[in-house]
Structures are given as C-alpha cells and as structure tokens.
C-alpha cells in the first residue's frame, strides 16, 4: 500500500480556480442521486452541514455521531465568531485580504488554492446562516455587526454573543433534522466509528459500535466522509470536549490515508489556568476578549502583590510592547509563546506561577461596565463560576492550553484523502490553516467544507463510480468487524492495575512537556523513547471494568486512548524531523535573535504526509511541495 500525492489543483489564475473546477466537475443527474449512499461520520459544523446539504441534493445519507444528539458536537463550544470577507465595515477587507491574512497567519504552510477558495466562499456562509435564522449580533440599523480577531487589522468577524459556534451548529443541526424528517438522512446517534472498510482500493464503509447495547454493525456506502474533528485531546488537558478523539481518522490512517503535519497543534493563549491534579479539562476564554482586555504581568520576578497593588509603572503589557501594531490581538501562536516566556522568566501570576493577567479595568473605565457586560457577559460569568473571582473587579488569570489541531488527514483540492472515496472535512483534515490557525477561522472552514465544497466534489466523485456493487456480506466487512471484536476482547481481558485516565494523563504530560509550545531535539528524542514505553505498559496493565455488551464509558475511552498513544508518537516524530520553526511549531533551535519563529523555506516549504506501514514500524514520510505564486514568502511581522 503506497500513495502518491496529487493535490488536483485546477490550472489557471488563483481567483478562477474554483469556478473552473466547478465547471469541470461531472454531475449526477437528479434522479440518479438517490441511488447513491453516503456515510458521514461526525455531525459538527462540517459533518452536519455536509449531511444536510447532501441530503437536500437527494443522496441517501447515513450520519453518525457518538453523542446522544447531533446538536452536541464540539463545534458548539466555539465562542468568538466566524470570519467572512464581506467588507460590511468598509475597512479595507476583501477576499484577497482574507486569503492573505490566512496564509500569513498559517506561516506560509498552507496550500494557496484551498485558502483562496475558503476566502471566496466565506461570504456565502454568512448568507446561508442568516437565512437559516442564526441570530448574529446586529447594529441598531438592523445590519450585521462585526468584531476584530487576532491576526487581522480589519473587523470581519461575525458573532452571536459568546456563543457563535452554538448558533451556527444549531443552524446546521436544524437543517440536518429537516432532512432526517424528510427521510433523506438517517441519523445514528450514540454510535462510534471503530474502523474503516476499504474494498478494491476505495473507502466503502465503516464498523460502528452502538454505545448503548455494544452491538457492532457494518455500514456500506459509495463514499465515506469523516468530519470527526481534531486530536487536541492527545494532550489530555485541552479545551476540547472530553469525548473528542482521533479514532476515526487514526483508523483511516492505518487503512491507508496519509496523515499530514501532525505536529501543527495550536496552543490557545487565553484559557483558565490549571488548578489541580484532578483537572479534567481546560476552559477557553474567547480570543474576542483580547479586543478589550489588556494582557500584562508584573515587571519584577516573583512579585506576589495582588494585581490592584501593582502600580501602572511596574506592569509589563508585554504584547503591546513587543507587537505594537497588533498589540493584544497578535496571533495565537505568538501570544502563547510570549505568555510562556514571561512565566518562564518567573513573572507569572497565580499560585502556580503559570498565568498572566487579562485586565478589563481600562475598558470598563472607558466604555462602562454595561458595554463590557453586553459584549462578554456570559464569558465573565463563566470565569467567575469556575474560579470564584469576579473579573469585573480583579483581572482574569489566563494561560495557554491545547485547543485546535491544524494537522489532520491529508486531502486534495476535492477534500479527498489518499484513499479514493474517503473525504475528510473540517478540523479532521489538514487543509487550510497551515502551521497556525487564526481566530474565527475554524467555523469558517468547517462550514465552507460542509456547505460549499463537498456538495460539488462529492458529485464529481460519484458521477465516476457505479452505485452499489458491494454489500455487508463482503468478506472485508466480516474481517473488519472481527478485528474490532478482538480488540474489544483484548481490552477487557488485560485487567491491569492502572485506569485509562492514568495512561492518558501520562501521555498528555509527555507531549505537553516535550512537544507543546516549545520543542527541541533533545526533548523530542526523549518523548520518542518514552511514548512507546507508556504504550507497552498500557497494553499490559490497563484496567477496563464491565463488559462489551453494555453502555461502558471506560471501554469507549480505552480505544480512544490506545489510538492517542500511537498518534502521539507520530506527532512527536513529525515535530522532530521538521527542523525549522513555523507558526505553532516552535523548535527552540530555530529562532530569530528576537525569539520569533525562523522558517526554513529552502528545506521545509512542504506539507509532511505520513504513510502508515505497520504497528511499531517507522512510517514513511511523503512531501507535498508548497508553491506560492500569489504571495511573497516573508517572515511574519506583527510589529
């Protein structure tokens, strides 16, 4: 099993590529669409939008999610907003500028053609969502309001209070429920995909476990979509929902899908700091807070005075000092590293010393508390609930945490992986954010993929294959199901001494320490030695109570952690061989004299795409060279 990487980027000028592709695509005539079956795993913004849109077109769709309802997908937790190049504010925005900001924000490690298409369709997304009844924030004149986000100098972010992801997801969910009612989509909630079925080189189905009864079933289709989100929970502590996992994409990777840039993981600068070893997750405080909050630490090391005791002259507003042009709205990777640096210097705040202040005193003084309440009320309440401190009175304490993964399964311009018939959407793919994602761009990408890309590219794929041809009785189905059964039996039979969570924490700690905000060869080599040891112990000493024929949350977790233990190693390996710094991937050996990321475009202007070659065997690295015909490669400058 081996693959070659053909990104299938249409020829011609950048701004005409998508139009050209759409015209060149083959079509399935309306009466033939119902002959095709499509499986869609994941029902967040990308999967929910895709399943609904494909159902509307007349295909037979089966949609799967592990939650009790598609409305629970983790897209719902996105707070701040969604970018679109509408230029409603008349402040100099355009498709070209959103494209450029995204490419630059990603530190020139994303594919030009994909990012340009994303910027183009961004405007359609807002139209679609408004038509669905998404209650975006509005001005008194009735027009849509915008706010600013990191890495941009225009206001192009649309928002629904601090619950933008929730509202966009409910829009997609409602569209999906409408198709479920119409019979074009069949929904399987509380079903987890445990393997991909590949027949004659094409993705043809999945093995799923009914999480209530434990029953394993095979579903066959003409094409499979994975929209299963990112793998940020490899760090154990992250802003992801507890259930977010890599299993679907990792299983697909083991069946032949290339995994691209696993080391591009985003550490979000504004999260509530860790409070103790029982901590189960970290809570994000929206980046939008940086519109009005100022980030600072004491000038002096080890300053234990409370914030109100530290006079103005003894505070270091370090982002404003280091990046005057963007100030507190510097991109996420840069802000996170700056926070780590001041804490490493011993200037961090809070009992752990791993925290910086996000202070609203100046904005409250200037705009009044009511204005701040209207903008961020729910976030302030959430902060107070968690920490017991009132952020209207004392500054918030924040620290970076794992948040988003730019890496994922490699896809071409059609969003197809290296396995024909396997399409990957949203955070699960690697496509648009390069080495660092800008704020409010994840929602944009998820919905772009689901509403406006896959309906075209899926049609083009299906038009070239005959519907049906294999069913659940194919020997490959029984084999895949048996493999899953054996694995379940193995997990239940180990009966060791340590819980699944203990292994997960151990893995997360190694990756956070050695492959988090700063990485170096020595640490990465240590992690590469350590992870296989943890994995070995895991398979001998993990304890999973209960049986396979019931609702068993520990059994659900153990399979996910087993996959994280494999993915974690690939992540570190990818970080080890990428001997440059770019975006969120900061190799300490490669930095400018001012401590900024130092890219090596000579040797690393490519996407690293890993091919699985067998358990405990070294994966093979393929490279997709990135060419930049429309932007000039430069060192990112936010000063």
């Amino acid at each position, binding site marked *: 099993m081996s693959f070659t990487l053909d990104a299938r980027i249409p020829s011609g000028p950048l701004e005409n590529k998508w139009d050209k592709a759409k015209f060149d695509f083959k079509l399935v005539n309306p009466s033939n669409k119902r002959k095709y079956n499509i499986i869609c795993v994941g029902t967040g913004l990308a999967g929910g939008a895709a399943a609904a849109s494909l159902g509307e077109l007349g295909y037979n769709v089966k949609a799967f999610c592990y939650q009790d309802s598609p409305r629970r997908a983790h897209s719902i937790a996105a707070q701040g907003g969604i970018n679109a190049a509408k230029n409603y504010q008349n402040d100099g925005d355009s498709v070209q500028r959103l494209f450029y900001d995204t490419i630059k924000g990603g530190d020139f490690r994303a594919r030009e053609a994909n990012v340009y298409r994303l910027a183009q369709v961004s405007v359609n997304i807002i139209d679609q969502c408004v038509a669905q009844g998404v209650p975006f924030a509005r001005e008194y004149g009735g027009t849509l309001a915008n706010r600013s986000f990191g890495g941009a100098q225009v206001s192009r972010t649309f928002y629904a209070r601090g619950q933008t992801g929730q509202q966009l997801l409910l829009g997609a969910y409602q569209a999906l429920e409408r198709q479920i009612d119409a019979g074009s989509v069949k929904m399987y909630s509380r079903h987890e995909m445990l393997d991909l079925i590949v027949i004659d080189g094409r993705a043809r189905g999945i093995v799923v476990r009914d999480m209530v009864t434990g029953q394993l079933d095979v579903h066959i289709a003409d094409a499979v979509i994975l929209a299963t989100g990112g793998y940020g929970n490899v760090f154990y502590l992250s802003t992801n929902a507890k259930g977010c996992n890599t299993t679907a994409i990792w299983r697909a990777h083991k069946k032949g899908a290339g995994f691209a840039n696993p080391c591009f993981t985003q550490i979000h600068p504004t999260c509530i700091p860790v409070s103790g070893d029982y901590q189960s997750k970290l809570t994000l405080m929206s980046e939008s807070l940086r519109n009005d909050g100022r980030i600072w630490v004491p000038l002096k090391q080890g300053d234990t005075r409370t914030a109100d005791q530290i006079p103005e002259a003894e505070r270091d507003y370090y982002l404003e000092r280091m990046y005057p042009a963007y100030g507190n709205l510097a991109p996420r990777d840069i802000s996170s590293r700056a926070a780590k640096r001041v804490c490493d210097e011993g200037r961090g705040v809070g009992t752990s010393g791993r925290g910086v202040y996000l202070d609203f005193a100046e904005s409250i003084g200037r705009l009044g508390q009511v204005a701040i309440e209207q903008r961020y009320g729910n976030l302030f309440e*959430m902060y107070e609930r968690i920490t017991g401190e009132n952020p209207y009175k004392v500054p918030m304490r924040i620290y970076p945490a794992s948040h988003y993964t730019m890496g994922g399964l490699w896809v071409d311009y059609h969003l197809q992986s290296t396995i024909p018939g396997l399409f990957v959407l949203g955070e699960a793919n690697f496509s648009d954010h390069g080495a660092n994602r800008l704020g409010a761009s994840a929602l944009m990408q998820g919905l772009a993929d689901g509403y406006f890309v896959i309906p075209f590219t899926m049609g083009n794929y299906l038009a070239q294959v005959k519907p049906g041809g294999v069913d659940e009785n194919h020997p490959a189905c029984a084999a895949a199901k048996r493999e899953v059964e054996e694995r379940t039996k193995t997990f239940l039979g180990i009966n060791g001494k340590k819980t699944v969570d203990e292994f997960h924490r151990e893995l997360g700690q190694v990756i956070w320490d050695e492959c988090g905000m700063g990485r170096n060869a020595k640490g990465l080599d240590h992690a590469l030695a350590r992870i296989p040891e943890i994995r070995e112990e895991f398979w001998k000493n993990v304890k999973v*109570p209960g049986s396979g024929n019931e609702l068993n949350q520990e059994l659900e977790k153990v399979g996910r952690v087993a996959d994280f233990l494999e993915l974690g190693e690939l992540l570190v390996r990818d970080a080890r061989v990428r001997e440059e710094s770019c975006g969120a991937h900061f190799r300490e050996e490669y930095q400018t004299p001012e401590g900024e990321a130092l890219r090596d475009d000579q040797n690393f202007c490519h996407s690293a795409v890993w091919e699985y070659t067998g358990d405990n065997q070294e994966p093979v690295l393929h490279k997709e060279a990135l060419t930049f015909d429309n932007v000039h490669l430069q060192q990112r400058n936010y000063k």
Partner: protein
Amino acid sequence: MRLTLNIWRQKSANEPGKMVKYDVPGVSEHMSFLEMLDVLNQRLIKQGDDPVVFEHDCREGICGCCGFMIDGVPHGPQRGTTVCQLHMRYFKDGDELYLEPFRAEAFPVVKDLLIDRSAFDRIIAAGGYVSVNTGSPQDANSLPIMKQCADMSMDAASCIGCGACVAACPNASAMLFVSAKISHLGLLPQGQPERDRRALRMLAQLQEEAFGACTNYGECEAACPKGIKLENIARMNRDYLKAALSYREEASAGGAA
C-alpha cells in the same frame, strides 16, 4: 472536604435501580462537580466496581450533555449553572447529597444518571427550522433586523437542550424547550413563512412524546441553566392558537411545470 453521596444506580433501562451510598473524602473546593465524580469513579474502577455513568462532554456548560438532579434540583443548587460548571466551593464539609437522573417518562433512564433525550430531536425534526436549502439565500444584509428582535431571538436560541426544564416540571412538560425554538425562529423575519406550520407541527410531535402539559408552575424557568424565560411559552401559545384557527395545509393544484 468530605461528602456523602447517595447515587442512583441502574444497570440498564429494563432493570430496577436503587440508591447506593458513597463516602467521598478529599474533595477540593476548586473541583467541578463532575471532577469530584471523576475522582470517585477512578477509585471505584481500582476497587473493581462499576464506575457511575453520567453524561458529559464539553464541560463548559454549552453542549447540553450533562445534567442530573442534586437533592431534587436539576443541575444542583447554583442558579444559571449546568452541573459541569458547578464547583465544589458551593458545598461544605459533611454535606450529604442525593444524585438522581432527570425523571420523566419521555426521558427513559439508559444507565445510572444517563437518560435518553431523543424526543427533543424528534420535536426539532418536526418543524424547528427554516426550510432553506444550501446555496439559495440572498445577501445577509439585504434584510435588516431590528436589534431588539435579534437580541430576543438570541436569548431564546441560547437553549442548550439539556432537559432540566422537563425534569423540574411536576408535569414533565417540555413547553419551555419547544417555546424557546418557536421564539428563536418566530422573532426573526426568516422564520415568518413557516411560523404557523412550525407551531402546529412541533406541538403535535410534543403530544406524540410522553411529555405532560404546561400548567404554569414556572419551575422550568427557575431550573433553566441558560435563563430561558417563561414568556416564550406565552408566545408559543399565541402562535399555536392563531395557527390552529387560521392555518390549513395547502392542497397542491398539481400540474405545475
């Protein structure tokens, strides 16, 4: 601090359940309620016992997965807070608490504290949407919407579908949930064409499910972690009454195109 928990244990929908008492020492005030249960579960697993099953996912109070009764109150004693965001600083050493699943005929228990809320999905599928296919809309700013309407719509749209309203209601009514969706869409111009049909269809589905009727107790509003207001039910009733009197499904003349 040290707590005593009485937790409803039920192996599956078809087996009887019972209260089981647990002693939980070493609880930190900074833990969330679910983190406290995590600690208990880790201990149970090590002892070879079955951990307590409860639903949860985002742990940020937005996905709507979590929720159970603490001393008879959905999501526990702190107002406007889902149980995942409830922190132990609101309890004190020596407290004895009773944890039960949300009780309603329409929400059958699946296991322990975890219930089946798929009735909510079926109600949304019956009409809780605007029928607009992908790709057909006009420019987002072509239709101005009064800020006040957009804000009120957003208030209603904040519902997370957790089911606390049903659990709190002596009638196990789901009127607050349904009315929140009817208000969210009915307050926007985009929701007008289907406003009558939506009210009729969603309420018809509501009756199909085993939810009770609303008799204005108002417990739902008090229990709602997202502050959904009772006035939504009044709006829904108006919509329903108007639709019931004036709306009829159009019979297609056929033969078009």
